[in-house]
């Protein structure tokens, strides 16, 4: 008899995340994989793997979140904002402000003392100031995303990158390279531009509230450090930051 209580899947623009939880909300198995545009096929395959890993039956509820949530058959569809909040509160058990920089959008969520969403901000027009922005610009600088920490200059040495529009910023970076700016200084400038954008989205965060971070960009210590500088506060990166949304989705299975 399996202990699987529910399954959460988070179909993001960059990666597919999924996990199975037991009745106490503990993760029994998980999968993270680059997103495939054939969403249904990828979901069916990875769900089958998760079910095989945990012995979960087809009766176990599946809660879908992420931009692809409506493309798959699921017991319920819940937005990323609610799921990230649930996942975060399950880990921390306290109110705070959660920053999730996803592939396509960035969210800043105020979490209340009961684990509810009190308010949220989200960019809704384009990929400016998102993970995709970072990916495209760093690719242009030939810096692997997971090694950016080793390729940025020190604080105060970054060049100013004014745009967080992915297209404009890419042109700006090309022009900075042409002017002979150091790649490391440009990389810091890019991270600082993204941090400024997120910081403006976050607005004035009450001092007593801790800051948390989830999403794939939270795996990048350089980005977290620069964002903390911009916000003037330390940021706690949640465990398995990429999985927080899927975990929250699974936790939503209980109603």
């Amino acid at each position, binding site marked *: 008899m399996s202990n699987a209580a529910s399954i959460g899947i988070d179909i993001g623009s960059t990666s597919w995340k999924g996990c199975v939880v037991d009745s106490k909300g503990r993760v029994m198995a998980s999968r993270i994989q680059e997103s495939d545009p054939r969403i249904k096929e990828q979901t069916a395959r990875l769900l089958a793997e998760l079910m095989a890993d945990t012995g979960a039956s087809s009766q176990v509820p599946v809660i879908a979140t992420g*931009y692809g949530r409506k493309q798959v058959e699921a017991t319920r569809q819940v*937005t990323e*904002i*609610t799921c990230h909040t649930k996942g975060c509160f399950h880990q921390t058990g306290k109110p705070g402000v959660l920053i999730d920089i996803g592939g396509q*959008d960035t969210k800043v969520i105020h979490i209340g003392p009961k684990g509810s*969403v009190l*308010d949220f901000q*989200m960019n809704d027009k384009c990929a400016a100031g998102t993970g995709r922005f970072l990916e495209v610009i760093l690719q242009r600088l030939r810096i692997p995303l997971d090694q950016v920490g080793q390729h940025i200059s020190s604080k105060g040495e970054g060049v100013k990158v004014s745009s967080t529009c992915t297209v404009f910023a890419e042109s700006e970076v090309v022009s900075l390279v042409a002017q002979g700016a150091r790649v490391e200084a440009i990389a810091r400038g890019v991270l600082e531009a993204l941090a400024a954008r997120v910081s403006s989205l976050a607005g004035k965060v009450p001092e007593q509230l801790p800051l948390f971070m989830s999403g794939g960009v939270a795996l990048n210590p350089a980005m977290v450090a620069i964002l903390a500088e911009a916000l003037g506060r330390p940021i706690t990166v949640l465990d398995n930051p990429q999985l927080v949304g899927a975990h929250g989705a699974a936790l939503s299975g209980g109603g």
Partner: protein
Amino acid sequence: MTRNEAISTHRNQRHGKVLACFPMQYPRELLTALNILAVEVWGPPDVTPTHEMARIQAYVCPIVRHSMEFLASKEASQLDGILFPHTCDSLQGLATVLTDFGPWDKPVFHFTHPKGPLDSPRRTFLRKEFQHLATQLEEWTGETLTLEKLRDAIALHNHLDSLRGTLLEPTGQTLGPLQYELLRRGEFQWPQTWLEEIQEALAGVSVDVSKEAKEGGPARLLVSGIVPEPQGIFEALRQAGAIPVADDYAAIGRRICHVENLPDDPFDALMARYEALPPCPTRGASVDRRIGWLLERARSAKAEAVLLHNITFCEPEMFDLPHIRRELAAQGLPVLYMETELGGELSGQLATRLEAFVEMVLDARRKG
């Protein structure tokens, strides 16, 4: 009845002129009294962009940009003239560009309404504006405006507004796409025909008598903004588990002004109806009065949250919004602000924001 059918019926059966009217405040009663069909131009949302739209900067509101395109199209040839109320700078700019450089050579009328509370000088000014427009339209149509005709038209519109108000908030009935479609039909429908359609709808409507938020029921929203476009917003709200229970859209609820006892003098009656309109930045209403109005609407409709839905670059509306958001939130009303273009679909990100907002409201209800 479509807009084209309404125009054709007016020409063939009532033999009257057709006047394109820009948003949003103009004395429609005068037009009705002079047998002029008002066809309002809120865009329209579904124009095909050509070079005409490029005459206006991309950061100007889409109602203006789309209108430029529409007025240059073949479809606009059905219109006999245009009326520009003094709503905002962008529309005033359009009036200039259109006639000085653009593709419009038919009559253009202007109606300048005062901004701010109707004190004595503003009353005098407004009365003169009503009379000036009436004279111009009389000359244009060749019709004579008798006081009796004007009184009848005012009574008709006053009655219409009373029914529109009922359609917006009868005994707990909530707004859905059908009601909105009917409410917006008045943008081109002859008033008497529209009135009959609303009466018919009210007679046949099935009413949800619940006036309270209830467990398992949809989230109750006060919706405010300029014009409910794209119309997919209502379906997105329904799918997300929310319904509008009170309306302050400039194109809908913000134009309803039923006056119980109309003054006998028709120009005084026009002024009384103008004064009874809900507060709107396009008429220079103070933001505090507007906040008070929104709070009162939210409370009386038992709304749990507010959706402020602006169209991009609408300056009069944008100017007040930060203050409105802050004050409503301080009064414990969750507020979602979103901006859309006129046409097309609701983007996935906007739909997600709407859904997340509704989830937040319903979660707050569950947790008390």
